[in-house]
């Protein structure tokens, strides 16, 4: 679900096909019939943006029919935990949880806690900008709690306040009939999928979910994944071979970009950036981020070792290991905020390092307008992407909104080295690090990012070498010495990888994060990558052919952490340490050696058997009971109900997308209450649901990728073969919608939203079918989003018409479900384009629809039956 794996991850899809050959059922639930649907054993069409309703229906089916894996649920999850009686559910409050604050449009999580847990705001991990942790954090209990199980539990799962019963009540109205009304599928489709999942789970069998950005790019995206996690926990499918939830990421090292983040809110290894608060010393940070049990129990060792990697010998216990040099965050500083900052003039200089927001970011028109406000812009890429040339060929120049001679932005285009012109590691979607050798030297001025960042830092430091300004100290004291190689003076990537791996005080390379110390005697640039260079061997460069090793391929590359291939694999054994079944065995407790053994690296304290009980005062892994596999949580239990860590509620709930032609059939509250929107004239929204003007946008729109292209096109529209294979922007519509709007196959259509209007070739196909939703027929429009103005093949950008509305947890945009209008023919040229768009209704202030003149009127009322 939320993935077209055959199209977008075709080479990995060979394994799905092999599984199908061996009898596995492959079910595809998607708004469109795609290459994946064509090769699946079952396809279910649902309306874009309704996956939580569908998944919630599966949860309801499991609970109504008693299909849960009872022993797994009782022992390994927080289903038995009793929640405080102050908690109120969306069932009680019309789509809100208790703790809602209308003024700040956010939740406090005090009433989501375990009964008997400390009611004071708990410290927690993953600070998302709040000065003190509110509804964030990985949490658990107050620091120093001796034992980790929730204070009150009911192992019979009968107590009305236990998580299991709350869950049952929460999803009780997600019946097959109700789900069908929301999603546009049939009740039997839902029953079929739910039954297939249940029949293929349990001791003898496992089932797996695969998702991609079809799940994440929603204003309630995190909760999509949470719903799948709840299903997999109820069915006992986590930590076991053939189980799990597989995120198929879309870029070569997008996993690496979160592990060693270039993200505003985290430091390497998912350590939170420190927040702006009154007490800002290292000790406060460590206290607030340390969990009483599990892998987050030794945050002190992780952060001190990172600071030592950053500031080397300058970082000492006396100066708090230079913790003070870290900048502080005070809210959302994500990429979209930076764009708004450009519009407002607060962001003045910007680096684009292989990224093309003028085509690739939601509401890309806004990004082009924003770039034109900058003082300076550095673009590093292989080719002249649209973000580098917006000042002379942005569509806004054609409409007369921008004029080249008026744009103040100074632009530096710096040619980049390609993947074969530099050595380094990518981390793939399975957490696997693989090293690439350098095959050739980059030509001309082309350089790697490694070269660019190193030399930029060197030059800035040289220019400031004599500065006595305290602001420059963190920069001047930074450990910034790397061996340089070759004529271009390229930094040695392996030296950087060794810094990431970390060292002992004597310089010996570390082999495991368990060796990290909080006293400053170890360095480590990313604690989860510790061990990738163990014993002085670059393990990411291991390439033992698959025919010379086992099915898991454990000697090809290196997976974090500790080359472990299945996380939480303690759950592959029962509480007594025995495999759940012979057929599905992976790890088990070996009495003779008093260790966990099996085909993987155990994700648990290796010598803590099933009988291990944490002694008083135990911390980190030693505080995890021998029967509790989920060591990322202090209680060792997986969280069906999240008392903290998710800002939009402890349980997933179906909400309509920000832009949708429908009201919420389940709750008076239409869309996710704390979703992020940005009201300003330059960033309008379509009216939705029952609002006036909503009928101007009667269709559901979704965006997607094609095998032959890559995201914003910088790596595909400039490649002759790929351009030939997919030469033109198109839209997918059903024969019914084509008839309704007089769209001709192979002709042109114009897709209109309150942001912009784009044109596309019409592809009339039965792959995308009208759906019956809430008693009316709705049509969907599919839009690939690869095109722009530059390159070999050109076309309008789908991201011009999508809205800028974000998930409140992770600030990801909702581009997989929105509303639109579609009309026959090409879009107007020049200033007429804006006149067409402005003739449509729009929202630029919360709850306030600007009803436009009725110029758009022909054929835009809600249609069909």
């Amino acid at each position: 679900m939320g993935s077209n794996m055959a199209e977008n991850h075709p080479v990995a899809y060979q394994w799905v096909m092999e599984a199908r050959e061996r009898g596995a059922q492959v079910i595809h639930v998607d708004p469109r019939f795609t290459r994946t649907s064509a090769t699946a054993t079952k396809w279910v069409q649902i309306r874009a943006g309704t996956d939580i309703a569908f998944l919630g229906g599966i949860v309801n089916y499991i609970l109504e029919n008693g299909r849960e894996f009872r022993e797994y649920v009782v022992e390994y999850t927080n289903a038995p935990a009793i929640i405080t009686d102050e908690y109120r559910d969306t069932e009680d409050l019309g789509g809100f949880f208790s703790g809602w604050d209308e003024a700040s449009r956010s939740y406090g999580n005090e009433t989501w806690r375990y009964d008997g847990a400390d009611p004071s705001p708990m410290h927690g991990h993953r600070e998302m900008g709040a000065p003190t942790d509110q509804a964030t954090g990985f949490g658990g209990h107050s620091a120093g709690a001796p034992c980790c199980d929730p204070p009150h539990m009911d192992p019979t799962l009968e107590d009305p306040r236990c998580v299991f019963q709350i869950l049952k009540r929460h999803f009780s109205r997600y019946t097959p009939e109700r789900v069908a009304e929301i999603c546009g599928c049939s009740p039997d489709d839902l029953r079929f999928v739910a039954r297939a999942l249940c029949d293929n789970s349990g001791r003898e069998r496992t089932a797996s979910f695969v998702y991609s950005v079809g799940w994440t790019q929603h204003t309630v995206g995190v909760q999509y994944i949470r719903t799948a996690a709840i299903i997999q926990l109820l069915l006992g499918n986590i930590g076991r071979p053939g189980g799990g939830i597989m995120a198929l990421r879309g870029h070569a090292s997008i996993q690496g970009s979160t592990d060693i983040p270039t993200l505003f809110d985290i430091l390497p290894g998912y350590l939170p950036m420190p927040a702006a608060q009154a007490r800002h010393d290292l000790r406060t940070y460590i206290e607030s981020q340390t969990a009483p049990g599990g892998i987050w129990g030794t945050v002190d060792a992780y952060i001190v070792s990172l600071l030592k990697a950053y500031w080397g010998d300058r970082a000492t216990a006396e100066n708090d290991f230079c913790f003070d040099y870290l900048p502080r965050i005070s809210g959302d500083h994500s990429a979209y905020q930076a764009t708004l900052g450009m519009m407002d003039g607060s962001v003045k200089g910007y680096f684009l390092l292989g990224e093309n927001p003028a085509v690739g970011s939601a509401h890309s028109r806004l990004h082009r307008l924003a770039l034109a406000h900058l003082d300076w812009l550095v673009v590093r890429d292989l080719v002249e992407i649209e973000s580098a040339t917006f000042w002379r060929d942005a569509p806004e120049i054609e409409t007369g909104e921008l004029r080249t001679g008026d744009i103040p932005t100074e632009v530096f285009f710096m040619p980049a080295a390609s993947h074969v012109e530099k050595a380094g590691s990518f981390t793939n979607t399975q957490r696997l690090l693989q090293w690439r050798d350098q095959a050739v030297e980059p030509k001309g001025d082309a350089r790697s990012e490694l070269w660019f960042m190193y030399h930029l830092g060197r030059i800035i430091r040289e220019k400031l070498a004599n500065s006595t300004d305290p602001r420059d100290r963190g920069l001047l004291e930074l450990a910034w010495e790397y061996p340089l190689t070759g004529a271009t003076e390229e930094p040695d990537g392996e030296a950087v990888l060794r810094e990431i791996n970390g060292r002992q005080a004597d310089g010996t390379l570390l082999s495991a994060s368990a060796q990290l110390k909080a006293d400053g005697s170890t360095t480590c640039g990313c604690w989860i990558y510790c061990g990738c260079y163990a014993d002085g061997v670059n393990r990411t460069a291991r390439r033992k052919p698959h025919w010379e090793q086992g099915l898991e391929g454990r000697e090809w590359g290196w997976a974090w952490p500790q080359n472990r291939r299945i996380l939480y694999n303690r759950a592959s054994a029962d509480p007594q340490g025995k495999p759940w079944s012979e057929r599905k065995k992976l790890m088990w407790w070996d009495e003779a050696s008093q260790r966990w053994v099996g085909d993987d690296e155990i994700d648990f304290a290796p010598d803590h058997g099933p009988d291990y009980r944490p002694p008083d005062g135990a911390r980190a892994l030693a505080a995890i009971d021998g029967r509790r596999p989920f060591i990322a949580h202090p209680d060792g239990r997986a969280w069906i109900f999240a008392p903290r860590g998710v800002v939009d509620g402890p349980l997933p709930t179906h909400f309509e997308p920000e832009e949708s032609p429908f009201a919420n059939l389940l709750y008076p509250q239409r869309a996710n209450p704390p979703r992020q929107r940005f009201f300003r004239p330059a960033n309008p929204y379509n009216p939705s649901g029952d609002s006036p003007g909503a009928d101007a946008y009667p269709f559901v729109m979704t965006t997607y990728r094609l095998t032959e292209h890559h995201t914003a096109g910088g790596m595909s529209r400039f490649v002759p073969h790929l351009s030939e294979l997919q030469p033109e922007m198109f839209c997918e519509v059903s024969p019914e919608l084509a008839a309704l709007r007089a769209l001709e196959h192979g002709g042109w259509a114009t897709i209109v939203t309150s942001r912009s209007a784009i044109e596309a070739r019409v592809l009339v196909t039965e792959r995308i079918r009208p759906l019956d939703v809430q008693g009316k027929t709705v049509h969907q429009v599919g839009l690939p989003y690869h095109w722009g103005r530059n390159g070999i093949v050109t076309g309008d950008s789908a991201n011009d018409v999508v809205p800028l509305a974000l998930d409140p947890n992770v600030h990801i945009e909702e581009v997989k479900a929105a509303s639109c209008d579609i009309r026959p023919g090409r879009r107007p040229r020049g200033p007429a384009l804006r006149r067409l768009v402005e003739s449509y209704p729009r929202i630029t202030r919360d709850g306030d629809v600007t009803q436009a003149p009725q110029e758009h009127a022909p054929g835009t009322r809600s249609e069909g039956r």
Partner: protein
Amino acid sequence: MEPLQRLRSLPIVRQVRDHDLLGLGRAAQSEGSAALEPRTKTADAVYHSVCPYCAVGCAQLVYVKDGEVTQIEGDPASPLNRGRLCPKGSASRQLVTSPLRQYRVKYRRPYGTEWEELALDTAMDMIADRVIATRRETWQDEIDTQDGRVRVNRTLGIGSLGGATLDNEENYLIKKLFTALGVVSVENQARL
């Protein structure tokens, strides 16, 4: 060519003689094509790489002759892709050798209407100056919060957005340098 040899070289004869009745194999070879060799055979060196498109991580073999990439193929030894590549991965030789690749720094001055040439060293020096000046201009030692006036030690005036084809080592240096500069808005495609 001798008459007998010419007779033997007739396609119909070769189809029968070589058990290639449909003429889809060796019988279809001409003298010219028989002499052809795949670029993979004539390469000076072969390097191990990984496909730069999606996150499956297909291993590639990069064939190089005279300092130029002549072919990129899937690495049969990889347990992930077993030698296979998709259309994008198969086109990655064209990605790295595309005639549209840029190899020179280009500069557009404020309000300028055309690209101008700029030496790489000059560009690096100018960018460093811009970073220093904007950082000074937009620096925040402290801000007002609900906790009162608190230390932040940062600039919000500079931001960065990276693609997700960056190496781990590159991301490490990006985050390390920008953090030391006090730049907070360091972002990546991974958000999007």
